[in-house]
């Protein structure tokens, strides 16, 4: 199970490769637990306000563009696939494969942000569907609609920040790939980056139906 081909970059405070691999993986999983708890609070708020204002939430969800949201969902799923394929490419020393898959991952992430920030959100703003006290859309229940849109922008916004962090992370991994640092003897950073990216994707998989689809 321990990598044998290629040079394994053993950090000086670890006694052997297995300890380093295990430690890094446990560390990343712990961090991901904190991310789940972070978003968990927001999902909690969503559940509470949805159960308080079911009619308003139902009306408001129709104002979201489920087609664009759906495209974004597919885009993120593809990016998760390519993130995993990049790991596979490293395992078989396919350096070109690593580069290609990481680039597609980044492009998908950028596409996601563009669809959101260029097509989705401005369209909302034009209609007056803004978070909080800026809300001035023409809806049946404006007093509760602003809470829906507040939560919508907060949750997709925080998620979007995590997507941008993912873009930066994978760019950094791409640079390391060009330097030849990933091969069949060492690919863990790709794996850990992939784990982070899968959690970000997973959060979107919950966000999309709850906001765009749930009627």
């Amino acid at each position, binding site marked *: 199970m321990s990598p044998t081909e290629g040079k394994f970059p053993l950090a000086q*405070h670890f006694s052997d490769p297995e300890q380093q691999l295990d*430690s890094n993986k446990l560390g990343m999983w712990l961090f991901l637990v904190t991310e789940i*708890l972070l978003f968990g609070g927001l999902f909690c*708020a969503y559940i509470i306000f949805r159960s308080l204002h079911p009619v308003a939430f139902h009306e408001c969800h129709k104002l979201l563009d489920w087609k664009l949201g759906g495209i974004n969902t597919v885009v993120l799923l593809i990016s998760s696939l390519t993130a995993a394929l990049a790991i596979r490419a490293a395992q078989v020393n396919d350096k070109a494969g690593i580069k290609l898959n990481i680039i597609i991952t980044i492009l998908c992430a950028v596409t996601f942000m563009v669809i959101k920030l260029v097509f989705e959100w401005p369209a909302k703003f034009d209609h007056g569907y803004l978070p*909080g006290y800026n809300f001035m859309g023409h809806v049946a229940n404006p007093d509760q609609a602003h809470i829906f849109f507040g939560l919508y922008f*907060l949750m997709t916004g925080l998620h979007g920040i995590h997507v941008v962090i993912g873009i930066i992370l994978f760019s950094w991994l791409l640079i390391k790939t060009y330097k030849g640092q990933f091969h069949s003897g060492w690919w863990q950073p790709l794996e850990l980056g992939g784990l982070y990216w899968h959690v970000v994707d997973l959060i979107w998989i919950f966000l999309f139906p709850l906001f765009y689809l749930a009627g």
Partner: protein
Amino acid sequence: MTETTAAAHVGHDHGHDHAHGEEPNYLQASHGLKSWIFTVDHKRLGVMYLAAVSFFFFVGGLAALLVRTELLTHTKTIMDADTYNRFFTVHGAIMVFLVIIPSVPAGLGNFVLPLQLGAKDVAFPKLNLLSFWVYCTGAVMAVSAILIGGVDTGWTFYTPYSSTTSGSVVMMVAAVFVLGFSSIFTGMNFIVTIHKLRPPGMTWFKMPLFLWGIYSTSIIQVMATPVLAITLLLLIMERVIKVGIFDPALGGDPVLFQHFFWFYSHPAVYIMILPGMAVMSDMIAAFTKKRVFGYRFVAFSSLAIAVISFIVWGHHMFVSGQSELSSMVFSFLTFLVAIPSGVKVFNWIATMYQGSVSFETPMLYALSFLFLFSIGGLTGIFLGTLSVDVHLHDTYFVVAHFHYVMMGGTIMAFFGGLYYWWPKITGKMYFERTGQIAAIMVFIGFNLTFFTQFFLGSRGMPRRYYNYLAEFEDLHKLSTFGAYFLFAGLLLSLGTLVHSLLKGPKAPANPWGAKTLEWTHTASPPIEHNFHETPHAPAAPYDYDT
């Protein structure tokens, strides 16, 4: 497939005053400001945390003295009402987030954990460095908030006041948000270190109880702090774009904020006490020269506290309007969480029975803890009792309770740990007599200050009040006098330690004859890489000959 590490060493003491081949200690290993700013050595980071925590303890303490001085008379004494609100907020926020939470884990824990485990460093040394600078960033932000505009919401930031009042609430809340990351990174580091970096022979049940306590604390840090992060983010958003989650004027629910806030902040108080209890086990063992009684019970009680701590938050909200059923459930669970704490206290006492007890300064702090934490914990049960809490909620009784556990508990243990590990950290011995006198002064001053407040509270004095009924003035005067006496004792205590740096004699490797790895296998102070060879765990956690 794992290559074996160095040969096992069992039995005798390996700490020497002279290192093999004259290897310098960690303080001398490199020089210059950059070698400290960019250090990844857990020992240097621990020292820097200790310095920062001590500094902010002093600042928060000054704020407390100003609050107590204002309360000398029942009307205005030295400041107006708005300033008073700012000072008690500053005192609480600094003490909770900048002092107590990092004190034992990040200060003492960073230094001791790898040494006691038998590891070269923590699992992620660079993350450790990041954790410290994130702490500093949060500290600067908090100080800025205080200086620019101030915050008068209390450290609990209840809405809708906190979402509508003027002042630097956003900056202060953002500071706490940043500080939370420091806490999370430390917790992550410690969990992975304890799981993965144990040397040969160091199984879970060979670990000293200090490590069990720090481990349990780290679990809470990792799981609870993100909820605080999102709560604070939501509060900022409520202020900035008026989302409408917490402010009833906007369609929100202020009690929802309390649920969110206390879901973190209750486990947070166990982040504060568990490390103190962790230090207690090691001190009691060392100064009674005996294995801790009921080792497994004490170990599991730390985990039990960590788990149960997550399901009692509603006991801060008995009078908030939540349902009677939830209040009853939270009350019952609160009684439950006291049991593991009781287990520890009785096991420590049982450890002392027929032990060879000595009364050096660390032990005086440990004995203070035993007495003061017991009072604090017991009064927590009083407050957890529904019918009683209705009368005592938001009175000085609550203030006295939490000072008994947070200061009488954690800070006493922190000082005890600081004195206990001082020779290891600095290589110097402090002057015992002044250390002991200071510890006694602190104990007396503490009780004068805070026992009085139980009476104030049970007689109806509300907390956070600037002016109060004249009938409470005498008790307030007594409490304030106690505070000044306590402050003098703390000054003497810190002064004793500072004096040792300048004039103290060189410390031996193991002045206490303790049996844990940091004492038996490292020099005082240790070399940069801690051990000359990977140590093997002793036969038992506190391997005294009994």
